[in-house]
């Protein structure tokens, strides 16, 4: 059974009080659960959050499955999100993801054997001037080329 | 309708009419004797009369590749039948991709007029009118054909496979 850490519960209480409508606290608390539950939100977590906040289960589940930044499957330690939108795909972002997946030997969305990496394609990250843009967990990496991607993979332990 | 008789000399005489008639008879006699295969008459029990390809005989319930009935119990044939002789009881199939199948499909042969409306109404080519003519039965013989009779009777050899099948339909994205 998933259980939020005490500070996690504290944060959720603060969020509940912070907005006029308690439903607005769903997204911040889901972010907190995702941080504490190795990068994904499990159904038990939704159960737990529903008891904690009193919001009906189906409503939390609706919000969880609507937004793309909440992962429904366990992800690796580093979640490599490659933008494949207009400008980035003009600069071979899609080919970059294909050979990255080949190198790590996984398909998109899967976790590599050593549990470090998950590769996924995302929409525009708002950094088209230095395309192709890659976001790893929270930091942006710009003008990615296959070589720069290799060095990045080797650095991230 | 009145027939206008031609008033000419030939018809008054008796002999020419007879000779004309006998002429036709002998011509046919010689024709039949010389070319026997063109004769229309079948010597019946040996040479049987073959029915046309569209002959509407006993019903056949087609089967899928795995031998289960192609029919999904949608009752369209029972609705379209003018003689109201098809009764179907549907049941839930445990494989979700099949979902509904007939647990009991009966055609009352005594009521059926073999018009083929059910064959036209069926959306999935599950029922067809086979080539066998209807076997007569004694009073009291059960004329109500059920699934084992319609789909798996000995003459069908384990069920007639249907051309249209689910895998191709689903692969085709319909």
């Amino acid at each position: 059974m998933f259980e939020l850490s005490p500070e996690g519960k504290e944060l959720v209480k603060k969020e509940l009080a912070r907005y006029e409508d308690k439903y607005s606290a769903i997204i911040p608390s889901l972010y907190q659960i995702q941080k504490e539950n190795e990068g994904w939100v499990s159904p038990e977590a939704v159960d737990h959050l529903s008891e904690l906040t009193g919001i009906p289960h189906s409503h939390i589940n609706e919000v969880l499955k609507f937004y793309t930044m909440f992962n429904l499957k366990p992800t690796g330690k580093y979640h490599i999100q490659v933008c494949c939108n207009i400008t980035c795909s003009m600069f071979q972002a899609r080919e970059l993801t294909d050979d990255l997946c080949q190198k790590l030997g996984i398909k998109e969305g899967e976790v590599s054997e050593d549990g470090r990496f998950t590769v996924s394609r995302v929409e525009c990250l708002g950094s088209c001037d230095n395309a192709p843009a890659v976001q790893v967990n929270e930091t942006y990496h710009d003008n990615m080329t296959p070589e720069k991607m290799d060095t990045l993979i080797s650095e991230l332990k | 309708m009145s027939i206008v008789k031609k008033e000419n000399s030939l018809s008054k005489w008796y002999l020419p009419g007879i000779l004309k008639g006998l002429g036709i008879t002998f011509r046919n006699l010689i024709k039949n004797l010389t070319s026997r295969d063109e004769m229309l008459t079948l010597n019946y029990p040996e040479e049987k009369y073959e029915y046309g390809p569209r002959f509407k005989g006993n019903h056949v319930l087609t089967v899928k590749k795995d031998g289960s009935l192609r029919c999904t119990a949608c009752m369209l044939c029972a609705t379209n039948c003018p003689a109201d002789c098809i009764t179907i009881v549907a049941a839930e199939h445990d494989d979700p991709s099949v979902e509904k199948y007939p647990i009991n499909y009966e055609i009352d042969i005594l009521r059926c007029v073999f018009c083929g409306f059910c064959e036209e109404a069926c959306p999935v080519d599950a029922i067809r009118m086979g080539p066998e003519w209807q076997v007569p039965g004694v009073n009291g013989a059960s004329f109500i054909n059920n699934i084992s009779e319609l789909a798996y009777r000995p003459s069908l050899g384990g069920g007639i496979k249907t051309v249209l099948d689910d895998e191709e339909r689903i692969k085709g994205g319909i």
Partner: protein
Amino acid sequence: MPKCTVNGIEVEVKDGATVIEAFMKTNESIAHYCWHPGLSVAGVCRMCMVEIEGNPRLQIACNTPVQDGMVVYNNSEKVKEAVEWTLKFHLINHPLDCPICDQAGECGLQEYYMSHGSYDSEMAERKVKKHKVVDLGEKVVLDTERCILCSRCVRFTDEVTKTNELGIFNRGDRSEIGTFENRPLNNKYSLNTVDICPVGALTSKDFRFRQRVWFLKSFETICQGCSAGCNVQAYYNENGFYRVKPVPNEEVNGHWMCDEGRDVYKFANKEHRLVSGIKKEDSGLSHMAPGAAAVQLREDLSDTKKAALVLTGQYTTEEYLKFVDSFTKNYGNEVYHWINNPKTFDDFDGILLRGDKNPNTVGLLRVLEGKGIKSSWADLEEKLNSGQIEHLVVAGPENLAVFPDLEEKVTLFGQAQKLTVLTPVKSKFYESADYQIPMKSFMEKDGTFVNHKGIEQKLGRGPIVVSQALTLLDLSMILDGSDFISVNSASMGGSL
């Protein structure tokens, strides 16, 4: 009270009403899926497009408030093409399930396809595949591929039952209706979602694959499950009754109906019914025609002095009037009212379900007051224990599901020397009774039920399942001495 012209027809609607309500007032047809008179406006199916004079863009009728003097029409070319294309968008990912779908025959997509469809689907690509046969709860099955995401069921569980079990998960054309894992759709009104679902996505397990809709005929009557008196539509064909659906009626039940009421038809079917009159003789039970059993009951009753009558609230007011009248005339006014669940008698679950499970209790109490009979249940029990009652006539209930304590009540009644049970339904507890007389079910007779609010509602008469069964009217005629049942009172209409 703003006025507007709809397709050339002048309509007046109340303030704040939307254009679609104006359309509903006229008998102009307007295509709509997500709008439902009993629910809030979602405006997502985009079928109810109308053209408003002075507005170049098509507007949706369900959300546009009516302004005075507004000219609206939905039979112009532009609107026809818009509705045709919106229906095409509904259908491109819709599975070819009509042969196995229970809703075929009354499906919203089929109806509008016939009037608005374009008949040549240009969709050559692969359809989106989703979950089939999803088990939503004890009573409802879901098929997310057929679902057109009109969100009626989600709004129902949010607004009417306020239990919000249902939600639309994922996004775009991968969205699916569903419940959270361990929260099935099990509230007391879950089958209403099956009625309001315009397509075959939600189907009821009880009716699943049992009969095709176009083989059923229907008639309107009053539900007999409890004293709320909901108006219902019962569906039947030559094999009996198949299902019951609610009929909208503003003051009584709005658009909804509870799930227990939907099993009421089962007691009217032949397998539950008592078909012939039974008389207990020393040589065992002898079966006879109901009329003959009634005549023998009359002779039996004529030489008793202390006879009592127990009535439940399950019969119509006319029957009570006539029967109580003839009974008290002949056998003294010992009439008692059998309340099956005194503890939970007047609780109310906030929407429709009432504690009092008899449809005509108020009618019965009115008749008893009219006759000036005041009798409490206690002195019946006291009389029974002391054995003063020679012959007890019990007008038994029809809906056995709501009389759980039937067994000990019958043993209580057994203490009278002679016991007669008038019951539409057969039950093994009645074997000990001297006479069992089959009665007509509420589906087979006319009459009025008076619901808890005192509203009198007429029963509709459906097919007769047991043609010779009596009603209390016939029984009172027999008790008054006549041997032949007059034709006009009892079995009118074609029998099965």
